[in-house]
C-alpha cells in the first residue's frame, strides 16, 4: 500500500516545520532526506545508516536478524533513521502515511539539533562523516581484493577488532596525558611527602620508579595500544585496527546519549507538531503514533519514554509553570528553554539521570531494580525511600558505556615475556565467562603473545589467561593486591 508521498507536499511541510524549528531556537545542520522502501531501510539499519560502509559478515547477520523479526512481525521498522552528519542525512519510508512522515521530519530536527550541540559529539566531525566512512570502505575493500591479502585474512582481523572495539577511552572530555606528562606524573606519584622534620628522621631510601614500563598508566584504548605496540602487525592490519577504532569512537556519543537524544527528539516533535495547527485527521494520527513511540514498556526501559519524562520534568521545574506540570500541547517558555538548551549541551545519559531523575519521577514511573536469583529475575528494590538511590545508580550503570566492562592494559611485558596483562575494574558485576574466553582468544590473535586478564568471579580474584594452549582460569589470587608481580 504505497501512498507515494508527494515531494512538493513534503517540502511545504518541511518549510513549516523549519519555521518552528528556528522560532524555538533549535540550531540544526542542513537537513537532507532520502525516501526509501523497506528493503533499503533494512539495509541502512544493518549498516548503522551509513550510505557506504566496509563489508563484514556481521552486517549480513544483522540484516537477516532485522528481516526475520520484521517478517515475523516481532518488530516493525523504525519510522526514521538519522545519522550524525552534516548535512544531517535521514531516511523516510516511502510507504508511511503523511502524518507519520511529518512526525518523523519533526523528530529528525530534534536529533539534528542534538548532534550539532551536545558536547559529546564535538569530536565526531559531522561534515566529514560520510566521506570518512566511504574512505574506510574503500581501503578495506582494497585489502579484500588485494591478491596478497584476501577476504579471509581481513575477516579474521576485523572479527577480532570488532570484539574489542568498545574497549576504548570512554570520556573524551578528559584529555589523555602525553607520554612526557605520564613520566612526570609517575615520578610525582612516588615522590615522598614533604617532611618538615627531615633533619632528625633517619634517611629514607630514595624511591624508584620504572619509567620503562609500558604502559606507564593503565591504557583503555585496547585497539590503539595493540596497533602501536605489536610490531608483528603489518601496515594493513594496523590500518584495520585504526578504522574499527575510529568507527567505535564515532558511535560512542550516540551510545552515551541514547535516552537524552531520543527524549529530546520526542520532546521537540511533540512541540513542533502541536504548534503546526494540523488538520484534525492528521492531528489524531499524530497522537496515535506519538503515544505508541513514548509508551512505557513494562519490565524494560523505553528510552523515548524515560527521556521525554525527564525533559518534561526539567521544563516543569525550571520554567514559568509555577511547579505545576506543563501543558504538553504548549510551547516551553523562555526560561524553561534556556535550561533545556543548557542541559542538552552539557550532559550525557549518566549525568542526565544523576542530575534530573528525581525521586518523584522514579516513583511516578514505578521503576524497580531486579537481579537474577537462581533461575529467576527477582525485584530487589522498588521506588521508595529505601530504593531510590540504588535504582538510580543501577540504571546509570546500565546505560551507555556503563553496560561495557572497564578493562585496561596494565602491563605489556608481564613477566618479561611480552605477556599482555589486563585488569577488569570490577564494580560488583562479574564478566560472562564464555564471552570473556572467546574475546581473549581474539585478543591473543591480535597481540600474538599470551594474554592474562585479572578479574573477580563469585567474590574471588581470578586470572583468566589465553595462550598457545588455549584458555585457562588460574586459581584464585589475592584480590586488590599488586598480584603476581
Amino acid at each position, binding site marked *: 500500500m504505497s501512498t507515494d508521498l508527494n515531494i512538493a507536499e513534503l517540502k511545504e511541510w518541511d518549510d513549516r516545520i523549519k519555521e518552528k524549528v528556528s522560532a524555538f531556537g533549535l540550531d540544526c545542520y542542513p537537513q*537532507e532526506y532520502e525516501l526509501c522502501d523497506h528493503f*533499503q531501510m533494512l539495509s541502512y539499519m544493518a549498516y548503522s545508516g551509513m550510505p557506504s560502509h566496509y563489508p563484514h559478515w556481521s552486517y549480513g547477520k544483522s540484516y537477516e536478524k532485522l528481516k526475520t523479526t520484521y517478517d515475523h512481525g516481532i518488530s516493525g521498522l523504525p519510522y526514521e533513521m538519522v545519522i550524525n552528519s552534516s548535512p544531517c542525512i535521514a531516511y523516510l519510508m516511502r510507504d508511511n502515511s503523511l502524518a507519520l512522515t511529518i512526525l518523523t521530519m519533526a523528530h529528525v530536527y530534534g536529533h539534528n539539533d542534538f548532534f550539532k550541540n551536545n558536547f559529546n559529539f564535538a569530536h565526531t566531525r559531522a561534515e566529514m562523516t560520510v566521506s570518512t566512512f566511504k574512505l574506510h570502505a574503500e581501503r578495506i575493500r582494497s585489502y579484500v581484493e588485494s591478491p596478497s591479502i584476501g577476504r579471509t585474512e581481513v575477516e579474521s582481523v576485523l572479527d577480532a577488532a570488532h570484539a574489542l572495539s568498545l574497549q576504548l577511552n570512554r570520556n573524551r572530555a578528559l584529555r589523555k596525558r602525553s607520554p612526557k606528562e605520564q613520566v612526570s606524573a609517575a615520578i610525582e606519584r612516588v615522590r615522598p611527602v614533604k617532611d618538615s622534620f627531615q633533619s632528625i628522621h633517619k634517611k629514607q631510601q630514595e624511591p624508584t620508579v620504572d619509567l620503562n614500563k609500558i604502559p606507564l598508566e593503565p591504557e583503555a584504548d585496547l585497539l590503539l595500544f595493540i596497533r602501536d605496540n605489536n610490531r608483528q602487525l603489518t601496515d594493513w592490519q594496523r590500518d584495520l585496527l585504526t578504522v574499527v577504532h575510529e568507527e567505535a569512537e564515532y558511535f560512542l556519543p550516540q551510545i552515551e546519549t541514547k535516552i537524552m537524544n531520543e527524549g529530546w527528539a520526542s520532546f521537540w516533535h511533540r512541540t513542533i507538531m502541536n504548534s503546526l495547527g494540523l488538520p484534525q485527521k492528521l492531528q489524531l494520527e499524530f497522537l496515535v503514533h506519538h503515544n505508541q513511540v513514548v509508551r512505557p514498556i*513494562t519490565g524494560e526501559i523505553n*528510552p523515548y519514554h*524515560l527521556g521525554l519524562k525527564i525533559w518534561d520534568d526539567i521544563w516543569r521545574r525550571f520554567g514559568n509553570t509555577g511547579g505545576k506540570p506543563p501543558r504538553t500541547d504548549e510551547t516551553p517558555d523562555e526560561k524553561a528553554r534556556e535550561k533545556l538548551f543548557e542541559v542538552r549541551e552539557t550532559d550525557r545519559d549518566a549525568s542526565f539521570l544523576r542530575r534530573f531523575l528525581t525521586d518523584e519521577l522514579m516513583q511516578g514511573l514505578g521503576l524497580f*531494580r531486579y537481579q537474577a536469583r537462581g533461575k529467576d*529475575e527477582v525485584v530487589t528494590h522498588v521506588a521508595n525511600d529505601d530504593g531510590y538511590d540504588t535504582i538510580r545508580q543501577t540504571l546509570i550503570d*546500565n546505560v551507555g558505556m556503563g553496560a*561495557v566492562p572497564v578493562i585496561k592494559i596494565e602491563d605489556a611485558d608481564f613477566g618479561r615475556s611480552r605477556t599482555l596483562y589486563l585488569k577488569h575494574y570490577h564494580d560488583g558485576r562479574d564478566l560472562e565467562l564464555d564471552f570473556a574466553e572467546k*574475546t581473549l582468544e581474539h585478543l591473543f590473535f591480535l597481540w600474538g603473545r599470551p594474554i592474562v586478564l585479572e578479574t573477580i568471579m563469585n567474590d574471588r580474584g581470578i586470572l583468566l589467561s589465553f595462550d598457545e594452549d588455549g584458555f585457562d582460569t588460574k586459581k584464585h589470587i589475592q584480590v586488590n593486591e599488586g598480584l603476581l608481580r
Partner: protein
Amino acid sequence: MNSSDTIFRPYSSSESLRSDRSAGDRQRHREKVLESIRDNISDLIAEEAIIGQSSDRIVKIPIRSIREYRFIYGKNSPGVGTGDGDTAEGQVVGRAKGREPGPGPAGNQPGIDYYETDVTLDELINIMFEDLALPNLEQKRLRQVISERTFKRRGYRQVGVHAHLDKKRSARARVRRKMASKRAGIERADDRFPFHQDDLKYRHRVPDMKPSSNAVVICIMDTSGSMDTMKKYLARSFFFLLHRFVCTRYQNVDLVFIAHHTQAREVTEEEFFHKGESGGTMISSGYNKALEVIRDRYHPDHWNIYAFHCSDGDNFESDNDATLRAAGQLCEVCNLFGYGEIKPYTLHYESSLIEIFENIEASNFQAVMIKRKEDVWPSFKALLKRERLPEATQGETVA
C-alpha cells in the same frame, strides 16, 4: 534557514535494486551459518521433522546465531525496569537469560539466541553426506554408474569470476610485466606498479563426469510384529538416510527393497517406507531373498553390492543357524554387509543377533546398535565413512 537548505532525494526503484549492498555480507554470513549447521548436524538429524520429507522441501532450522563475542557482564548484573506501580520486592519479573553483547538501551533486553534459517533439505543432505561414500567400490566390468558430478580445471583464462582468480599466477604476470617494462626502459614517476587487467589470471573449469562402477544397494527391513512403531521409526530413519545418500551422491545406483517377517518379498520404495506388517521373525528369509535377487539380477562380477539390514534382533530361535549361514553367504558376494540392530529399550529377555553375528569373521561385515534416534546418524556414518577403508577411495578414483 530558507527552504533551499533541505534536500529531498526522491525514491527510485532502480536504486533499490542497485543498492542491495548487503548481498555479499549476507552471503558470507550464510556460509558461516552452514558451517555451524555442519558442526551440529547430528542434533538436527535427530529432529523428526527432517526425516521422511521430500527433498525440495524447505526446512526451517533453528540455529544458534553466529555470535559476536565481546566482554560483557554476566548473570549477576542487575537491571532496572519500568513497573506498573504495583511491583513489589521479591516479585519474579522474568527468567534469567543469557544476554546479547553490546550496549543497548538500558534495561533487560535479552537478545534472540536462536533464529530460524531456511535451508532446503537437499542443501542439508549435501552437507551431511560430504565425507561419506560407498566403501570398497570396485571397478567391475560394464561400467555404467556415474558418480559425483564435479568440475575439473582446464587451463587459465584472462576473464572469469572473482572467485576463480589465481592469485599466484596473477602476481607472477605482474612481475613479468614489470621486468619487461623495465627492460623497455619505461620509467614510472613513482615506485608503484599496480596490477593491470591483463595480469589477472582466472582458473578455467569444465564439468567433469566420473564414470564409476555399477552398484546396487539392497535394503532389508524386518517388518514383523515385534517391530513396534518406535523401532520401525528408527529403522526407517536409517533407510531414509541411506536412500537419500545413494540418490544424492550417485547418479545411477540401483536400490532394492526387501521387507520380511517370516517370509520375505521385494517391495517398492513406497511400500517399504510406509507400510506396516506383522507376524513372526525369520531373518534368514530376508537374506535368502536378497541372495536370490543377487543371483537373478546382480552378478557379483559385474556389480558392487551393498546390503543393509535393520531388525530388532528378535529372531525365531531355530532360525539362527540358517540366518548365520545366509549372512555368511551375503558377505561373500557383497562389498559391504551392514547390520543395524534396533534396541530402543533395554529388555534383557530379548535375544540379540549381534552376539550371534560375532561369529562372522568376514572383514566386510559391520554391525551397529541403534538405541535412540540420536544414534541413527552416528551409526550410519560409522558404516559409510569414506576413510573407514583406505582402499575404498582408491578404487573409486582410479576411474
